[in-house]
């Protein structure tokens, strides 16, 4: 098929170029570029700009042509040419208010429609992120959780779990480099500054569109903005827990920079409140993150960008008597460089190198003097990934071919010699590294009529472990207003998590320690999916059904109570296990006038099997409904987010049964001993989850049009303080009197109560 494509390509003209914002000169992704014969508009070919704004329209008509470009939030652009331009075009789109089928789009921004730009993904942009009530701050990961494919395991953890998989199978890539544990406050908020995000893509499948990632459960790809190239700009926000600031601007005529950072003042705030007696304890927690990006426009589609990222968190605690000290420090750093060039007239080359490192260092002493009386916790470690990735995307006359090679080295080094925080972290020592040398190729081409196909294969060599082959195939049909597809894929991943998702700690902490899989078989995912989507005017509906099986997972055995399970550690106890998930997802978007909505519904089933025991994992919810609404009135944007979810699994209570000693002489159970008998593991369901968040913000649309703005925001989470629960437990309260009954008390750990957040965003 490739030879056929090459032969056909030699006879065609391909129009390439870059679509940019006319003010800041930033690339405009997902723009539609149409090349038509000037004489007859029916002879037209279409292409879409990628995340760097680059496009290629192969098979362009010969002779006089008209090139048209359009993107949501921009005025249409068109030019006529005597011949299809051979050199890359530079299309500058002007931000403009336009009406498209009743969809009102404001100048300076696309109204977020996460299902309109890619059939493979759920894509959120800053408009979508700001169209949801803020939880502490505007948060890119919480916006992604609007996808029906994603589900956050709790209110306290913003990291989405994808289609019955867990977080280690869904890497988060920032400008092409993997970030480990990219969040703050245990996972409550993402550590990627929303100010810097151009768009974030959730790839729910490991098949079409995600082949280059090579993971078990898709990926989250965050692309940061290039800095503005027209003038220097400053933007930021002051919030309850932290403030952030970004500075961007041109460097010479063809380069730009963007620097943004965030720093919390939880430590300063609680110290002050403690000093005046407002709170009993000072919470000495701090975090900051810093991101910088420099982009050089090398002309045409050629560009070079370098991204640097740093985040740090820590707790430094001394008790009031000076008797103990706990020092927790962790954070990560990453750097990535990306180069884009054109190869011939039809192909783009992308080369990325990156390095990412997560480090943690824990020390807790019972006494400040040396030697300490006791050690509460001691240990540390790191996770490192180095990667190099070269990819060529070739736009042929009838289809496209993408091929790439990758070299990735992951190292996990964990050494925790002692821990009294046994529910969170068990003592463990593990150091291992793993190379992954991979290559992939995929082909997309029309089959005739409205049918088309995509197929590809990824081959990986994990030295000393295994060689794997991960193919995928997809068949699609494009109707006039709808499309449908069916696909099958397999993927592999040789990194395993040390998390135990059955522990209650996993609902509060998103942090993960990962380790290379040192012995085969390599964890793998096999999935099938079918999808349908249609659009009518400003309404769009997408339906997906999937079934997947995850084999050779490393899982801890299920032995105990979620409240007693250790969240991280015990790699020696990991067993070969498997997982399965299937589900139906629906997502929709709609806009009319100043009202827009994005919604999702998901039904799914997920299981895990360890040691021949199959159970429903505790993070799973069978049904989830998410609905986001945004209404613009005057200079205000009102937003609401409604969540309705079925309860998480819990082991039902059969009975509390007393046990005797059955020997004579002195009972060790003075009031008897009650044995809590649970039913089938996780067979029960906690009460349903219901939450309504409301938000208001003054619109800051002036930011991108270069005007000064101040945009205060307020949000109320869980408006009715619905008593959502995270886990349930039974406790026996034995009374002292013989006449009193034993009270079986039910304890529920609550999710987030009603909370109000506010802040101010600004720019100039």
């Amino acid at each position, binding site marked *: 098929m490739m030879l056929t494509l090459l032969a056909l390509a030699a006879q065609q003209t391909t129009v390439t170029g870059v679509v940019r914002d006319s003010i800041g000169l930033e690339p405009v992704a997902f723009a539609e570029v149409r090349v038509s014969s000037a004489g007859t508009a029916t002879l037209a070919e279409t292409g879409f700009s990628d995340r760097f704004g680059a496009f290629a329209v192969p098979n362009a008509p010969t002779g006089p042509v008209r090139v048209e470009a359009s993107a949501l939030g921009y005025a249409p652009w068109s030019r006529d040419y005597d011949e299809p331009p051979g050199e890359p075009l530079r299309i500058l789109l002007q931000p403009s208010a336009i009406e498209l089928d009743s969809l009102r789009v404001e100048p300076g921004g696309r109204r977020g429609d996460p299902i309109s730009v890619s059939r493979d993904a759920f894509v959120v942009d800053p408009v979508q992120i700001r169209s949801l009530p803020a939880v502490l701050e505007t948060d890119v990961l919480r916006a992604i959780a609007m996808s029906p494919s994603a589900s956050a395991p709790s209110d306290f953890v913003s990291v989405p779990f994808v289609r019955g998989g867990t977080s280690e199978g869904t890497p988060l890539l920032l400008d092409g480099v993997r970030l480990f544990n990219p969040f703050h406050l245990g996972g409550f908020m993402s550590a990627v500054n929303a100010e810097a995000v151009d768009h974030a893509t959730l790839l729910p499948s490991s098949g079409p569109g995600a082949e280059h990632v090579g993971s078990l459960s898709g990926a989250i790809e965050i692309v940061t903005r290039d800095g503005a190239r027209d003038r220097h700009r400053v933007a930021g926000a002051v919030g309850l827990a932290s403030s952030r600031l970004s500075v961007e601007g041109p460097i010479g005529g063809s380069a730009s920079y963007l620097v943004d950072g965030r720093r919390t003042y939880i430590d300063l705030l609680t110290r002050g409140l403690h000093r005046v007696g407002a709170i009993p304890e000072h919470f000495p927690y701090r975090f900051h993150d810093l991101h910088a990006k420099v982009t050089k426009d090398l002309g045409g589609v050629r560009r070079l960008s370098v991204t640097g990222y740093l985040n740090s968190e820590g707790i430094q605690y001394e008790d009031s008597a000076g008797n103990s000290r706990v020092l927790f420090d962790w954070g990560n750093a990453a750097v990535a460089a990306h180069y884009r060039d054109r190869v011939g007239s039809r192909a783009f080359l992308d080369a990325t190198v990156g390095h990412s490192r997560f480090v943690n260092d824990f020390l807790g002493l019972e006494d400040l003097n040396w030697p300490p009386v006791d050690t509460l916790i001691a240990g540390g470690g790191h996770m490192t990934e180095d990667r190099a990735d070269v990819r060529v995307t070739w736009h042929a006359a009838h289809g496209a071919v993408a091929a790439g090679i990758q070299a990735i080295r992951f190292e996990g080094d964990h050494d925790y010699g002692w821990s009294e925080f046994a529910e969170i972290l068990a003592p463990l020592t593990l150091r291992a590294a793993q190379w992954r040398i991979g290559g992939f190729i995929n082909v997309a081409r029309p089959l005739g009529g409205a049918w088309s196909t995509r197929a590809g294969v990824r081959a990986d060599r994990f030295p000393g472990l295994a060689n794997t082959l991960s193919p995928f195939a997809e068949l699609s049909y494009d109707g006039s207003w709808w499309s449908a597809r069916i696909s099958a894929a397999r993927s592999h991943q040789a990194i395993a998590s040390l998390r135990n998702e059955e522990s209650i700690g996993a609902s509060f902490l998103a942090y993960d320690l990962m380790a290379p899989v040192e012995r085969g078989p390599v964890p793998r995912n096999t999935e099938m999916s079918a999808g349908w989507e249609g659009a009518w005017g400003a309404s769009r509906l997408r339906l997906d059904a999937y079934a997947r099986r995850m084999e050779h997972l490393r899982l801890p055995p299920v032995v105990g109570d979620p409240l007693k399970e250790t969240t991280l550690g015990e790699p020696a106890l990991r067993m070969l296990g498997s997982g399965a998930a299937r589900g139906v997802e629906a997502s929709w978007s709609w806009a009319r006038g100043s009202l827009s909505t994005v919604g999702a519904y998901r039904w799914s089933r997920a299981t895990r099997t360890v040691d021949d025991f199959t159970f429903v994992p505790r993070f799973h919810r069978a049904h989830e409904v998410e609905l986001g609404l945004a209404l613009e009135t005057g200079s205000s944007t009102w937003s609401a987010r409604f969540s309705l979810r079925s309860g998480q699994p819990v082991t039902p209570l059969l009975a509390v*049964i007393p046990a*005797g000693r059955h*020997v004579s002489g002195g009972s060790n159970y003075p009031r008897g001993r009650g044995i809590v008998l649970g039913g089938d*593991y996780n067979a029960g369901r906690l009460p349903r989850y219901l939450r309504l968040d409301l938000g208001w913000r003054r619109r800051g649309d002036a930011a991108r049009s270069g005007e000064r703005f101040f945009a205060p925001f307020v949000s109320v989470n869980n408006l009715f303080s619905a008593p959502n629960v995270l886990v349930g437990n039974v406790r026996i309260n034995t009374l002292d009197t013989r006449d009193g*009954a034993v009270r079986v008390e039910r304890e529920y750990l609550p999710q987030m109560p009603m909370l109000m957040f506010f802040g101010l965003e600004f720019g100039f």
Partner: protein
Amino acid sequence: MRKRGLSVVAAALAAGGCDYVAAPDPLEPDPDVVSVAIVLAAGESEAFLLAGHPHRPPTHPPPEVSATLLGPGWEAAFSDTTDLEEGCGGGPTEWPMPMVCLRAPLPEPIRERAAYRLDGRAPKGPFTGSTVVPSAPGILFPADTFRLSATRNTGNWSWMPIRYHTPDDVGTLRGEMLAVVGDSTGTETEWIRVWPPDLDVTATADTLYIDRDERLQRGWLRLVGIGWQYTGFLEASEKHGRRPSFGIEGEGVHGYFDGSAKSRTVHVIVGDEP
């Protein structure tokens, strides 16, 4: 087509609707649950069954339970109601619940390694049980007699080294001691406390601590081995995954059905050799 799409969504929502309706709390204790505790003691010619409503106040009436024990070639009904302490004293009689102790006179003593079954009926329906009485544990040391020092080792405790053998079918191993206590006014017998409460069944030696006061004159100490169904029941709170059988099956009936067997006794004498 639009209608069809909306219908699909509506159907899916309706199918999931029941999920959003408040369901019974799976952690709510069922007041009708019945607890059953039976440990057949090898060598005894009677069996006792303790039945109760563990989730009800003790002022409520006890559950109406009938049961029959099926031994090797015979059946014996739990036909008598006996005093709680006298009949089911080793059982969970300290638990504040309405309970009843049922007694079954047997045609022959309970045998070690013999299988027994149980057929019964509780308020929620029938229940069944099965167990195999374990083998008796062995005391390898001391021999027939052990002499405790007249002075206690520490506090109220005197200790005694012991070596023992635990058969594979014993999951719980405990010591018990019947003591003769007295002073110038006379003597009486009473069961006294032995520590540790459970001996390690994977070990072969330990030290037993005997809770005694100055009135102790002598006594008889032995080990009691109880089967794995009872042992598994004690660990059930910690096992949320696959759970072994505790010997009782039936709707709304939970508990354990197992057997126990005793070792030989060691005569414990207080005071130095004359």
